[in-house]
């Protein structure tokens, strides 16, 4: 990756104090996301974590990625989480017996994720053409919009479209799951207007 001055960007280019503060904030908020029993606090911590990621992007000079991170993840997607939490008025989660399976699955997923990240980074560390490293994401002109668009619509176009198809499938599936049977029930529950007798005005 090349930075603003054409030098390769490594993490040591970020001011150490800034990196340390944001990293601590990110770790704490990530822990808060999973450890808080109240789902609303969890969502707020998640927002904090996403803002931390955006701050890291900004410190690396990738202003466009940073702004999109705030606008899309913190601003749109997590608001929906918050919306659902508030709308359903979720009670504080009690530790049930089903949670052990989730815990093991979550730890397994975490290990797999770390392995994938290491696989992506190791070629970069030993100076081989790596999996990460699209040139110019941190260009000073227009915050890297042009190189990012090029990368998305040429090199990664198949993955990009595949991800959008997966999201579409997930969206339709969730609507179908949520709407299953509700429409019929709602229609039965409603009282037709003709059945409602107007109250006499003289009592």
């Amino acid at each position, binding site marked *: 990756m090349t930075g603003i001055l054409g030098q390769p960007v490594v993490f040591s280019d970020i001011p150490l104090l800034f990196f340390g503060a944001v990293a601590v904030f990110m770790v704490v908020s990530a822990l808060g996301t999973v450890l808080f029993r109240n789902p*609303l606090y969890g969502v*707020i911590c998640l*927002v904090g974590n996403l803002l931390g990621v955006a701050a890291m992007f900004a410190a690396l000079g990738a*202003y*466009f990625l940073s*702004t*999109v991170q*705030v*606008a899309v993840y*913190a*601003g*749109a997607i997590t*608001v*929906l989480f*918050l*919306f659902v939490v*508030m*709308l359903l*008025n979720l009670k504080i989660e009690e530790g049930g017996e089903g949670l052990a399976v989730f815990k093991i699955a979550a730890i397994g997923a975490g290990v797999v994720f770390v392995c994938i990240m290491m696989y992506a980074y190791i070629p970069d560390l030993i100076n081989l053409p790596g999996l990460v490293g699209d040139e110019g994401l941190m260009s*000073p*002109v*227009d*915050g890297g*919009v042009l190189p990012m668009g090029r990368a998305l619509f040429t090199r990664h176009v198949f993955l990009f479209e595949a991800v959008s198809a997966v999201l579409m499938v997930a969206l339709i599936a969730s609507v179908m799951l949520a709407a299953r049977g509700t429409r019929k029930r709602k229609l039965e529950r409603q009282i037709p207007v003709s059945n409602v007798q107007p109250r006499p005005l003289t009592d």
Partner: protein
Amino acid sequence: MNTVITLVLAFIVLNLTLTLASFCTWFERKGSALIQNRVGANRAGAFFTTDILVLKPVFWVIRWMGVLGVINTLLCDSVKGILKEDFLPSGTNQFMHCLGPMLAVLPIFLAFALIPLAPEFELFGTMIKPQVANLNVGVLFILAMGSITVYGIAIAGWTGNNKYSLLGALRASAQMISYELAMGVVFVTLVVQYGTLDLSGMVEAQRGIWWGVVTQPLSFIILLIVGMAETKRGPFDLPESESEIVAGYFTEYSGMKFLIFWLGEFAEVALFAFILALIFFGGWHLPFLELPHGVWWAALIGHVILMAKVLVFCMVQIILRWTLPRFRYDQLMNLGWKCLLPLSVINLFGTAVVKVYLMEG
């Protein structure tokens, strides 16, 4: 040197924001009185007199400010807000209760950092760009900051710990998410139109009579409506509709915390006035007036032109707010999803086709 310039600019922009918010507060109170055929605030300070000759002109100014309602709406109300008891609803969290108003205001003030106040100029041998942060993502940053304010509203409604606040917060967040989509598409259209993300670059692209409102009239109408909806004012003030849900998400706020929500609202009105003036009405340009580039007095004239446009748009938003009746909630959602969003997408496709095949092909 750059740090000093940035600090001075930040000071100026912060004060400008607060002044514009105060102006909007005053105009809202006094203008609404004019619209509703009332007199409005005109008493506090209106009868100040003195026998000391030196102080007479000062008291004359104070009397006039009192008659115009400036003292009442700005000074008395803020002192009242500071002195009032700041109570906390039972069964809620004090930290979250404070976080609500902060998150509702802070992003708006941050967004002002991206607003260019005048063209570039040279002073004491240094080129100054009157813009606090030069982030080169321009309008996208404003979009991102606008979406963060939803959290302030949602948290405020949730910490109110009653159903009316919660209903208000739900209405506000649903409304803001829905209208943000159309706003994002309009911003993308404008990026396609002007070929840059930078706000001052967008202004420079509208020299002469080719203002944004001439080249993108549909975008202007959509963004004006979306701006009114995003500020949760005007015909879109369902989140705080007093006839149904007391005061919506800030029902349980009192004193200065309550006033901070109002400050945020008026700052957002000023922000949208800036956006409309900058990207649709040529910013510091006037048709048939060519100012020299990079001279300080030209920048000053440009700044005055820009501020005149901003004040006009602040007033337009407030007058619209006091003229139009409130929507029903289903009408609001239909307008956002079935009217504005498809229109803005069609507008984006049309602009892209015209740009690629007619202007460059």
